[in-house]
């Protein structure tokens, strides 16, 4: 059980409220594939992801970015039980997709940077702290069923 202060809950829910999943999802995933090119290894079936230009124009990447952020919404809506909310997804990423769990942290970092670029100064240190705590819990839950 994670302890969320009243402020942290407020920051996370309000920040989520500002996110347009259809915009932020693609931006975050594209950024991850460009900044950490080794993550491209998981997208062999997505067509051309070999250059920044290809990644920026790739429709499958954009669609998948939306899928990932929609998944994140489940954590926002179940902040008091993220661990169990993500149990199945964790098994999926481990047993079927074979994704190194460190990649969740990389995508989380890119998402944080996209948020910062969208919100500017409004992405205050306190809001960032709450958001990063939330992402740490999400990343941990996603890695939990790996064995």
């Amino acid at each position, binding site marked *: 059980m994670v302890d969320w202060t009243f402020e942290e809950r407020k920051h996370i829910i309000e920040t989520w409220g500002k996110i347009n999943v259809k915009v932020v999802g693609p931006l975050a995933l*594209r*950024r991850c594939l*460009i*900044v950490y090119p080794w993550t491209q290894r998981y997208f062999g079936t997505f067509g051309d992801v070999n250059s*920044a230009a290809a*990644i*920026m124009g790739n429709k499958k990447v954009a669609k998948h970015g939306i899928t990932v952020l929609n998944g994140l919404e489940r954590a926002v809506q179940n902040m008091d039980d993220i661990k169990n909310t993500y149990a199945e997804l964790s098994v999926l990423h481990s047993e079927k997709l074979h994704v190194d769990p460190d990649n969740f942290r990389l995508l989380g*970092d890119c998402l*944080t*940077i*996209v948020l*910062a*670029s*969208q*919100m*500017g*100064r409004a*992405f205050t*240190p*306190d809001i*960032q*702290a709450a958001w*990063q705590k939330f992402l740490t819990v999400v990343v941990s839950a996603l890695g939990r069923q790996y064995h």
Partner: protein
Amino acid sequence: MLTKHEKELIAQIWDKMIPVACDIGSESLLRYYYRMMTTFPGTKTYFAHLDIRPRSPHLLSHGKKIVLAIAECSKDISSIMVTLAPLQTLHAYQLRIDPCNFKLLSHCILVTLAAHMPDEFTPVAHAAMDKYLSAFAAVLAEKYR
């Protein structure tokens, strides 16, 4: 390895940041330091001897030192080992900051750059900057052992 284009992007970004860093009144850039201490409270342990409240002059002048060092090296990245030699010694023998914290600081610098100049901080610029800050951190930690 940093490509020529990446080095140019990095130098361009820091060129824009130097005048902002020098203007202590313009704290939005220097807030990266406060951002790091708020997001990663373990980093505060190194500042027990300073006043690290959000607008403290200590925090701003300390943050400015770091930004200026990073910006200075960005002008000639191939000479980074020479330029950073005194800081290597300082960090290894005096400050002894656990190098894992360099990553946390780098992340907060990236967040601050994204918030400050979202249009310029494209994924390609972000990649170049991340590579540069990782190299900077690695060189800084070289004399530790």
